[in-house]
Structures are given as C-alpha cells and as structure tokens.
C-alpha cells in the first residue's frame, strides 16, 4: 500500500502530467491517421525523450502506445481503413455497422471496449505486481536466456506462412547486435575494417529506418489517397455505455490481452484471434460475425487495448521486451542507466505502480478526448498520404540526426528504410529484426554467465522455471510443425488467398 501511495506521489508532478496529456492525445491523433501508427511516432520521439526523466519519457511513450489503438478504431469503423495494424480486425464488424447507419453505436462500442480492456488489464496487473515481485527473483541467467529464446521462437512461429523469412530476419537481427567491438575479449566482429561499424549498429538508427523512414518512402512512392469520412452525430458517451451489454466478451478479451501481452513475442494479434474465436463460438448469432456483429467489435477492441499494460511486464520484471514497442522503450531505461529486471520489481515497486497509475489516467484522458472529438479527428485524418510521407521523412530526420549528428547514421537509417520498404511491400515482418537485435544481445550475455555453472546439458533446465520455459519452447515448435502438416492436408489454391499489401508497421 505504501508503494502505491509513493507511486501516486511520483506521478503527481507537472512534467509527468504534461507528458501524459501530450502522449495520450497525441497518440489518439497519430493512431487515427492511417499510415502513421504508434511505432513510427515512438521511433521518432525516442531520442527526444532521452533528455527527460525516465518516468516522464516513459509516460509519454506509453501514452502514445496505449492511446493509438483508440484513435485507430475511428478510420477502421468509418472508412474501412485501420488506423493502426491492430485495428484491422475492427474493420471486420465495425465498418458493416457504419454501412447500416450505426456508426455512432459502433464507435461507442469500440471506445467503450477499449476503455474496459485498458482499465481491467491495468487493475489485474496492479494486483499481480506483488506476486510478480516474488517470482521475478527466481529468474537467473538461464531463465532469462530461455525466456528470451522463447520470445524469438514465438515471434518466428507467430508469422504463419512466413516462418522461414521471419526466422531469417530474426537471425539477421541477432547478427546485427553482435557487430562491432565485442566487450569481453575486445575483438572486432563483422566490421569489415570499417571504422563506423566498430561502435556497432545502433538500435535506434535501425528502428527509425525500419519503422519511420520506410513508411515515409512507402507513402511517398504510392499513389496519393485522401481518406473521406462521414460526420458523426449523437451522444458518444452514451454510446460507449453500450459495451456493458457485452460484459462477458469484454472481460474475456481483457483476460486474453493480459495473458498474451505478458508472453514475449506474442501480442495483440493472437489476443484478438483468441477472443474473436471465443466470442463467435459462444454467440447466439455466430453467422453475423464479419457482417457487423457488435460482439465481434467488442472482442477485437477489448483484446488489443489490454495488451500494452501487460507487455510492460516482461520488460520491467525481466528486462525482456516482448515486441517492437517495448524494445524501443528498453532503450529509454538504458540511456538512464536504469536496468529493468527482477531488482526493479523488488526495490522500486513504486516506480512500477507510478507507470500503471499513469496508464489508468491516460485511459481516462483518452476516453474523454475521443468522446468529444470524433468529428475533429475525422478532419485531421484527411491528410493526403504522399504529403504524410513527406512529414514522416522530415520527422524521421530529427530522430536519427539528433542522436549524434552523424551523416553515417542517417545513411544507415536510410538503408534500413529501404529494407523496411521492401519487407513491407513483400508482406514480410520487420519486428523479428528488432526483437532479434534486443533479445540476441541479452541471450549472448546471459548464456555466457549461465554456462559457468552448467556441467551437463540437463543442468541447464534443472530449476523449475527453466524446465517450464524449455518445455514450452519444445512444445510450441512441435505444435507449430503439427499445425503446418494439418494445414497442408487441407490446402487451398494459391489464387484463393489475398496477396495485397497489408497496411501494417508492426509485423
């Protein structure tokens, strides 16, 4: 209880509250503009937050992360274009409702479900925090190594149909993390005699290239589009209360969101998939799913909004980011010499509570903002896409150049921008590269320290948590291969699939 009060005290400063306001409102606007999304905004703002206090910087980034999905549901429902990748499922039932003339009801349900998902997940995690504080110290080097390995395995197999490409990209990320002067034996690795590679490849430069510049190049090279939408009239706050007619689905969605958010390498998509499948199987009208069923909309939006809070768990408790956005946030900790891990949960529980309180506040701020501003947001998102590409490149420059005023960094970022563009056009994911970079460097350090006490391979898994994670890794790989064999038997012709470019920056 004392830590909770101390957490309140930590966030009750003007700087944190302003960061919260800017992050949450900025996040809604960014999320609502198709083609921008939280990863682009966080990548751009990351270097600017390095000069801030860790709590201020993290609050702003968390604000963007947590609120972008609220904004993303607006174009998903009104114009059938998801604002962020994780709102894609929202189009499935949200847009048919708009076409039926129920735009206000659909938006209200989406915002209401997002709010319920966000708040329930944070409350669950506040209650879980003391338990996590007890479990986290049980994670030694080998458990952290195995958890990071689990993250890599999951991010590879989660990209069904592209497992090989995702595996190759994750391995490329691991290799990137090893480039430069190796810190133990002081040998040069993969520098090819080039001076600028001696200090390694900077994660932020890669992130900015893959997420921000690639999107700028992508939009600038595409034909111009300007989204058009209709005006919404009526009481949005009243429409939001409609979610209470779907309490069961909203709670299940939040539960899946929390569970999937906590597992590294998994995230919104799997949480949405599970919730949607559950909602459809238990519905009295399963045939209406995909044709404007409110239950489907609530499933989609409650599950995705429950993930951000939970995704902070592996990051804060173990120092292992589970997806690209928390991987970016990890660099905020590193810059301030704060090492997330078991110690943080044991010694600075107030800091953790402060982050969760900030997330509750951000959900409240956002729900008030979206309740009042849907029509204003519809006007903002009418920015033509090529113009938007120009703005992303301008902002991307600040992000890369302000790091060390290096033209080489900018050239490397532009190179990764081109790689990101090709991957995007190929429907291939960029996230495995980032997770490979971050988790690869953690795995190298932890394996080295873990092996000091390991004599036989079985010693590695002789502790309960290590054994559980190792079993999970083996089971997941076996189940994945089994799933592929089953799918091959029920193969559908290539032409039956959708070969469009998917508008996603999050893998």
């Amino acid at each position: 209880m004392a830590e909770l009060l101390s957490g309140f005290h930590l966030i009750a400063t003007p700087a944190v509250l302003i960061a919260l306001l800017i992050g949450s409102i900025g996040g809604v606007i960014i999320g609502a503009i198709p083609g921008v999304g939280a990863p682009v905004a966080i990548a751009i703002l990351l270097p600017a937050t390095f000069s801030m206090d860790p709590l201020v910087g993290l609050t702003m980034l968390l604000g963007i992360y947590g609120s972008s999905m609220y904004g993303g549901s607006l174009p998903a429902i009104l114009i059938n274009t998801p604002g962020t990748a994780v709102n894609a499922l929202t189009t499935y039932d949200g847009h048919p409702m708009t076409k039926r003339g129920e735009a206000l009801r659909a938006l209200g349900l989406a915002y209401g479900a997002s709010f319920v998902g966000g708040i329930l997940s944070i409350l669950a995690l506040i209650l879980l925090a003391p338990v996590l504080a007890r479990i986290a110290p049980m994670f030694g080097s080998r458990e952290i190594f195995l958890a990071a390995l689990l993250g890599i395995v999951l991010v590879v197999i989660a990209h069904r149909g592209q497992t090989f490409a995702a595996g190759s990209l994750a391995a490329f990320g691991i290799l990137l993390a090893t480039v430069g002067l190796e810190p133990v034996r002081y040998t040069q690795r993969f520098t090819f005699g080039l001076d600028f590679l001696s200090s390694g490849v900077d994660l932020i430069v890669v992130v900015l290239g893959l997420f921000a510049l690639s999107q700028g190049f992508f939009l600038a090279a595409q034909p111009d589009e300007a989204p058009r939408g209709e005006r919404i009239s009526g009481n949005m706050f009243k429409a939001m209360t409609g979610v209470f007619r779907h309490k069961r689905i909203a709670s299940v969605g939040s539960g899946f969101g929390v569970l999937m958010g906590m597992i590294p390498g998994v995230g919104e998509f799997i949480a949405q998939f599970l919730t949607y499948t559950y909602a459809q199987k238990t519905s009295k009208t399963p045939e209406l799913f995909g044709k404007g069923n409110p239950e489907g909309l609530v499933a989609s939006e409650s599950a995705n909004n429950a993930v951000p809070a939970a995704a902070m768990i592996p990051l804060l408790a173990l120092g292992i980011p589970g997806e690209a956005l928390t991987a970016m946030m990890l660099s905020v900790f590193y810059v301030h010499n704060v090492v997330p891990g078991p110690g943080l949960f044991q010694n600075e529980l107030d800091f953790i509570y402060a982050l969760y309180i900030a997330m509750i506040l951000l959900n409240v701020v956002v729900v008030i903002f979206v309740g009042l501003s849907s029509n204003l947001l519809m006007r903002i998102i009418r920015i033509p896409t090529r113009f938007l590409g120009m703005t992303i490149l301008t902002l991307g420059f600040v992000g890369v150049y302000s790091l060390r005023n290096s033209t080489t960094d900018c050239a490397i970022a532009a190179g990764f921008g081109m790689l990101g563009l090709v991957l995007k056009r190929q429907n291939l994911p960029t996230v495995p590269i980032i997770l490979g970079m971050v988790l690869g460097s953690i795995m190298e350090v932890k394996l080295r320290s873990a092996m000091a006490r390991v004599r036989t391979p079985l010693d590695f898994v002789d502790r309960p948590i290590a054994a559980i994670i190792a079993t999970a890794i083996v089971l997941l790989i076996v189940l994945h291969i089994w799933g592929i064999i089953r799918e091959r038997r029920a193969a559908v012709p290539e032409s039956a699939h959708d070969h469009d470019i998917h508008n996603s920056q999050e893998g």
Partner: protein
Amino acid sequence: MKTFQDLFRRYRRPGDFFIALLSFLFAIFLLLNLPTQAPWLPRVQTFAQPAFWPGVAVIAMVIFSFLHLLGAIVSERIPGRLAEVLEWFRALEFALWFMAYVWIVPVLGYLPATIAFTTLLSLRLGYRGWRWMLAAALFGTVVVLVFKGFLHVRIPAGDIYQYLPAGPARTFIMTYL
C-alpha cells in the same frame, strides 16, 4: 472482402523469389566471411567465444533463407515480379531526397534546410499551389520550433549562420533555429 483468416495471415507477394534469393546470397556471403570477421580464439570455452553468437546467427540465416528460397521455388508463381522490383527502385528516389536533406542541414542551417526540403519535396510529390506550399513551409517551421527550439534536440547551427551580423539575433538563430 478479406476472410477472417486473411486478417491474421499475410500471404506471399510477387517478388518473393527475388527477395528469397537475395537473402540467401547475403547469408552465404556472411558465412564465407565468418572465419575472418569473427575470430575463434584458442583456450576459450565455446560459449564464451566471440565468434559463437555471430556463428549461430549466420548459420540460422543460411538455413532459414535456404528454406525460404526452397519454398519460393516450389510455390506457384505470382505474376508481376519485375514490376514489383521496379517499384523498390522507384522508392530509392526518396532515400536520395532524404540524404540530400541530411547533407544540406549543416550547411544551410536547420530551419532553412527544413523549409526547402518540405516545400520542394511537396512540389515533387505533386502538391501545387500556394496553399500546399504554405502548409509545407508551416509544417517545417513548426517541426524546427518544437524540436530545436522547445525540446532542444542536438542539431548544429548552419555554416551560413556565421555570416549573419554578430549580436543577440545571431545567437538566438544559432541556438534555436
């Protein structure tokens, strides 16, 4: 209308074979360079070898990219490979625009270079008329004011600023614009 399955799964696009081939060749190039670029030291345990992790990564890249290539070869060909690869090269123009912006900032200064970049690139992207030019210039100005003036991100003053008459105005411009 996309199916429920399609929302969660992304399928191959034209050019898949080309990217798989490039990725495999790149992995082979790295494998050939592994012995010289990541040394294997004597009397050091395998897991502590500097070459261990780069080795694991490169071997995984070779295996996965080979399987990706194999998958691309045996899969049905989707027409439009050349057009897709040409699209990638078209986007290269914007990488050059970006690098040109990077090179002119230390010379012209952040504000003038940003306004020049936003307006000229907007023109190139097909936005004509004074309204678009004003919007682009205004956007550039706001970015500079927010990031350099307000958030104090580190971007050096332009070379041409030193030709301004000495005084508080020059100091202000050098610090905030």
